[in-house]
């Protein structure tokens, strides 16, 4: 009766789970805020300034400006994906937190929805932390770049949903390494991030557009930060919204299947 495509019934209690994670995050804020800041600097210097001094320009855009939105998009992907794989798995399997939560009025659907919302919030927070650095270096433009913040939430929800599907079916924490290395790493490199998609053979371009959600996120992000907004943005945005909805629904249903026996 509970099919994989059934739209789950979620209550506003999902925010309680979200809030629990938020409280823990801010209590250890020093550990949590530093990595994205450092990451932003590292990428800017190593790739931007380093490779940038050879590459100079791509399509008439300074190389650092070209990769800055990609760094933001990759950060959105990583923070939500790793939160909803390793983070959620630890809470589910080792801490038994989900078991404790569903003994309260929270349903398993609320709990997983809260985890997904939290993954998305984490992406949003990281972008908020990284934006001022990029603005200070003058590699992104205001005010359109501010739209990267809501976009980070949507992108985070998408990668959180995909991540949670892996978490729901993984037999152990070790096997979560497969999606990390076989999916996330290639995606970070071949989604029009550090070089334009058009440099890839046509077949690969299609693969990237169909199977790499990051491609669409990078594309929108770049339109916003350059800025160079065209109507194609709506196509990318629609793609992301549809994929987000699909994976979040499947993730919640798979998790219920795993945990409610």
């Amino acid at each position, binding site marked *: 009766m509970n099919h994989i495509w059934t739209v789950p019934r979620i209550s506003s209690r999902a925010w309680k789970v979200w809030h629990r994670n938020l409280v823990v995050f801010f209590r250890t804020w020093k550990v949590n805020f530093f990595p994205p800041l450092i990451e932003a600097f590292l990428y800017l210097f190593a790739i931007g300034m380093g490779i940038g001094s050879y590459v100079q320009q791509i399509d008439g855009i300074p190389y650092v400006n070209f990769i800055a939105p990609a760094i933001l998009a990759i950060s959105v992907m990583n923070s939500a994906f790793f939160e909803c794989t390793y983070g959620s798995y630890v809470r589910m399997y080792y801490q038994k937190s989900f078991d404790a939560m569903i*003994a309260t*009025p929270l349903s398993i659907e609320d709990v997983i929805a809260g985890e997904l919302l939290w993954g998305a919030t984490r992406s949003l927070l990281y972008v908020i932390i990284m934006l001022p650095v990029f603005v200070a270096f003058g590699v992104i433009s205001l005010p359109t770049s501010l739209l990267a913040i809501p976009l980070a939430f949507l992108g985070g929800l998408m990668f959180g949903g995909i991540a949670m599907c892996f978490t729901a079916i993984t037999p152990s924490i070790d096997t979560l390494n497969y999606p990390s290395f076989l999916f996330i790493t290639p995606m970070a490199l071949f989604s029009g991030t550090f070089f334009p998609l058009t440099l890839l053979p046509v077949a690969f371009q299609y693969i990237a557009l169909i199977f790499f959600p990051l491609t669409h996120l990078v594309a929108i992000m770049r339109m916003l930060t350059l800025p160079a907004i065209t109507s194609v943005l709506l196509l990318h945005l629609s793609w992301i919204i549809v994929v987000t909805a699909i994976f979040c629904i499947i993730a919640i249903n798979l998790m219920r299947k795993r945990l409610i026996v």
Partner: protein
Amino acid sequence: MPGIIEAQDLRKKFGDINAVDGITFAVNKGEVFGFLGPNGAGKTSTMKIIACVSPRTSGAIRVFDMDPDTSPAEIKQRLGVVPQETNLDPDFTCYGNLFTYARYFDIPPDLASKKAEELLEFVQLQEKRDVTVEKLSGGMKRRLILARALVNNPDLLILDEPTIGLDPQARHLIWERLKLLQSQGNTIILTTHYLDEAARLCDRLVIMDNGKILVEGTPVDLVKQYVGNEVVEIEKTDEVLACLSKNTIPFEAIGDSVQVATDSSREIAKILFDQCSPHKVITRPATLEDVFLKLTGRKLKE
């Protein structure tokens, strides 16, 4: 007035295994009701159905006159659950665990805070208020879980092996707290392997095996009905065995001893000393453990 829980022909299947195989029982308000049974008897599965975290396969169950399948949130709002497995939140302190948990029940922050302090005192953990749960001993963790189960002033407390793995001091403290809750009119259901615990706490209990309820009653009645008042234990010798058989006294040989359940140990002792020349004889009151072993057998489970 309907009972707190009413179950009829309740069943739970995991694949081909009937974990709960058609049980019927009712729990009344203000009662401590025990589920006893060896490992794999179906106790925890039954608890999970009542707690709305595992849907039944078939049969009927009403908790607070509501159906766990259709009103889980409403039922769970009024439940306090002590699970078998310790699942405190390691990211929080003792106080933080209680406060956060109270928030899951929609208890407003100021009230949640007050309740958390109150419960820390109730389970005598005030000194550990700001300690992360990983630093607590096993007994302290169980106490904190008990406190956590009480944050919403539950109308029904579900305890799955509440004192598992605890030392005698910790067990006694938990018992004492449970007795106090009982005296305040709380309804409690509990599962346990410890038969002294069941005898001490339960007003009424069922003994389960292989997913079925074997017997139901008060601890005292069950002991009387299935064993008798006393048990005479005699060191096993061929002479004693032959002698008991000759006098048609029913007995059970276990290891190197022979047990005779009886209402009159004097009579048995007299026959023994007059006719059987026994080596060692001990007379003791019959316990729930005798009932349990008699009904569920002495073979190791699992």
